[in-house]
């Protein structure tokens, strides 16, 4: 419990740029999300050979 209090009481670190003030934690999360988005676009999705041969862009 005392360890938890120390963590909760620690002052946050902030990045200040012009009118923008953001905590390092939030900035890190946003950077990770952008990275995740880019990776989702460029990393090939594993597909079985059957699926690749089949399906000609079946649309509904």
């Amino acid at each position, binding site marked *: 419990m005392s360890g938890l209090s120390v963590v909760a009481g620690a002052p946050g670190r902030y990045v200040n740029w012009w009118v923008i003030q953001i905590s390092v934690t939030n900035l890190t*999360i946003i950077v990770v*999300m952008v990275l995740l*988005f880019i990776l989702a676009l460029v990393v090939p999705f594993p597909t079985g050979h059957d*699926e690749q041969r089949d399906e000609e*862009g079946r649309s509904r």
Partner: protein
Amino acid sequence: MTTRAGEVNPDEATDPKNWTNKLRGRLEGLVPPGQALPDRQPVYVASWIYVFGVLTLTSLVVVIVSGFVLSMGGSAWWHVSSLGHFTNSVHLWSVEMTFGFMVVHLWGKFWMAAWRGKRTLTWISGVMLFGISIGTSFTGFLSQSNFDSQWIGGQAKDGLNSIGAGAFFNVLNPGQMLMWHVVLLPLGVGALTLMHIILVRRHGVVPPLDAKLEG
């Protein structure tokens, strides 16, 4: 009315004025046949960007289940129990995951112009779901029953008063906020999630912008 024991009158069974038949027809027509739980998808769905919708949904299931467990313990349980503390952490981090996945899903769908092909209502229901999810999580922060929730409530009070909402939506009333968090807003989240999923299954996942060029 039945003609004999166990034999249904065919005229009555197809009576269009019968509300049961009308409701059945509407339910059956919600999604095209075979599209409620399809086991195959168009080839362009084989991309990681199409995974984030279902990741959001999966995280939401963890949010709901951990929320159920927290509800059984009561609002103060997580302060006095290690299991309660763990469950509270699971609840918090599954919410973080839900929002993270939801935003990446939103970015993907925005740049894909996912409202194309009569999918306007799918897009709008997603936007509404995003909005009501934010409200649900904010009332969660107000339901922590600690100094953090008290401070957040104090900060939010002035803003809500300034738009005239403070009279009926009192963020300094923890009981009211807890009820919004565990009953009213989750009902909206559940209904909109169901609507969003039905609409996605009804119109299918949106194809990439260059799908037609590929033929």
